């Protein structure tokens, strides 16, 4: 019994994420198409949140321009797709484009002090929005670029195959990201987050590590953008809008910054909130504002880690508490 409890006790922070992935795999069998479509958009938002969590949660770099890479992924994917390239190669090209832009801009950006990093990543996304809106020959400007998708990946033809394609890519990405943050590299990044000066003194190339995680995070955001083409089927310049960057931040914050499952939980929660509240009002700005304000004031570390134990760690905390009580009782009994 004690063995089982110890095994259950402190739940690793990635377990909820993969439990939700399992649930997501069963989703089409359990609920109607409406909810499968909701799940699809949740997965895309989750990946976007994951890219932000990688940067901020693990490396302490507060980016407010994830939309730049998300949008690049979406645009490169849709433009190549319309040129006759297959969806997956186009998506990979989108990821590569996002990573490349992150590499080039990151050389300057990662050296900035935090507040300038926030503002300039923000300005980068805004610059792309301007370009996408004005390069009409390429993107049709504000009218948007319609994706010509093959039947096998068209939600109008069939929702489930598209859903499973998105889920599969997302699951692989989650697993790879988990491997990255749990490996030595992730540990070094957390060290830099806690004390950059000490890390530098220990001989760690801080700027290069920061650049590395910036590029990786951009690639994940680009992937989210590429997948979003499947669920939206049309790409507008507003994929670069700061509200997109803000949603990455909100879901991460809601779920728990620096927790691996944070953005997954956050994306599901925010998706459900927006979905149900959306039936009463179209003013999601107000709703998201209330959610964000509540999180910042009440649970600044997110629902995954509210207080010391947190909502999700609550079972573990409870069990630990009971266990120490039981141990205390046993210790007291002989005397």
């Amino acid at each position: 019994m004690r063995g089982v409890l110890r095994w259950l006790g402190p739940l690793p922070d990635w377990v909820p994420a993969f439990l939700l992935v399992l649930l997501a795999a069963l989703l089409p069998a359990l609920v109607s198409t409406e909810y499968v479509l909701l799940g699809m958009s949740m997965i895309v938002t989750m990946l976007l949140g994951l890219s932000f969590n990688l940067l901020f949660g693990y490396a302490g770099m507060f980016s407010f321009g994830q939309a730049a890479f998300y949008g690049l992924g979406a645009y490169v994917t849709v433009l190549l797709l319309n040129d006759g390239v297959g969806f997956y190669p186009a998506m990979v090209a989108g990821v590569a484009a996002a990573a490349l832009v992150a590499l080039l801009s990151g050389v300057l950006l990662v050296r900035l002090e935090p507040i300038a990093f926030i503002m300039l990543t923000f300005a980068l996304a805004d610059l792309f929005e301007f370009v996408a809106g004005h390069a009409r020959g390429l993107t049709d400007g504000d009218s948007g670029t319609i994706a010509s998708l093959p039947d096998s990946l068209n939600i109008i033809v069939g929702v489930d195959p598209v859903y499973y394609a998105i889920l599969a890519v997302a699951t692989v990405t989650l697993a790879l990201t988990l491997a990255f943050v749990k490996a030595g590299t992730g540990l070094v990044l957390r060290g830099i987050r806690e004390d950059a000066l000490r890390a530098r003194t220990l001989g760690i190339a801080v700027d290069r590590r920061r650049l590395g995680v910036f590029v990786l995070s951009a690639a994940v955001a680009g992937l989210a953008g590429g997948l979003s083409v499947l669920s939206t089927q049309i790409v507008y310049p507003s994929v670069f809008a700061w509200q997109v960057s803000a949603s990455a931040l909100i879901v991460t914050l809601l779920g728990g910054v620096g927790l691996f499952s944070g953005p997954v939980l956050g994306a599901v929660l925010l998706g459900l909130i927006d979905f149900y509240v959306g039936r009463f009002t179209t003013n999601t700005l107000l709703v998201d504002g209330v959610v964000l304000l509540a999180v910042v004031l009440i649970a600044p570390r997110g629902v995954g880690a509210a207080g010391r134990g947190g909502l999700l760690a609550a079972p573990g905390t409870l069990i630990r508490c009971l266990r120490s009580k039981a141990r205390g009782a046993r210790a007291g009994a002989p005397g």
Partner: protein
Amino acid sequence: MSFATFLDQLFAGLALGFVLFFSAAGLNLVWGVLGVMNFAAGAVYMLGAYMATTVIARTGASALGWLLALALVPLLAALGGALTEVLLLRRTYRDHNENQQFMLTLALSYLLAGGIVLVYGSGFRTVALPASLNGSWNVLGATLPKYTAIVIVLGVLVAAVIWGLTYGTRVGLLTRAAVDDRVMLSVLGVNVNRLYTAVFAFGIALGALGGVIDAPGGAVTTNLETTALVPAFIVVVTGGLGNMTGALIAAVSIGVIESFATLQSPTYAQLTPYAVMTLVLLARAAARRGLLTSRAPVVR
């Protein structure tokens, strides 16, 4: 380019620069003194513009109504700002978590923008420039629209007021002291909390003032938040975080350069803020290795 055209563009650029300066100054002041990056500045600007359309329309689009909006809207914004500072922002100083403060102001910007959509709807609103402020003067062969002249004069006035407050009054003295050492100042018996409230309220009022000035004549839309915020951010970064003189120089030069660039290509002229910022940042990086350190580097 003839001299008249030169003057035309110069006037337009100066007006553009000073409107930019209002919101950037508010942002910069709050950052410099409180250490808070107020992301809601764009929403405040938008709110100022929307409220100005209401006030001016209600008073029959007269010059008096415009003056009323100019006085009333920043005052209301300052009240709201003071309330926000006391109720919400104040509780974040103890940890001094920049990111939490940023997210708080982001939440506020959502709430403000959502509130505006709730009250005004998501369509655009317009209010005409009062007739007595319309028209133009002829200066050395160039046309100087009355409203442009008013904006420039107002800009110079506001810059002078900020300078006078900072260097000529006791409040300004205390504010500068608070930037250097907040704890020491409160030990000396100064109510730093009240000082912070006043600075935040003043910063918000400046942002709203930009919106009021921008409102007449054009369309006031929900896009205004982004179109106001991005250049303001850029001005603050270009001028040096927390540096008010730098912000004034950056705002006016960006305005003037953009105005002259419009002659070449109205579309690409919109990229001026980015171009100027990139050049300044690169030059600064070349001048010294440490990039963009606004205050004395903190060794932790």
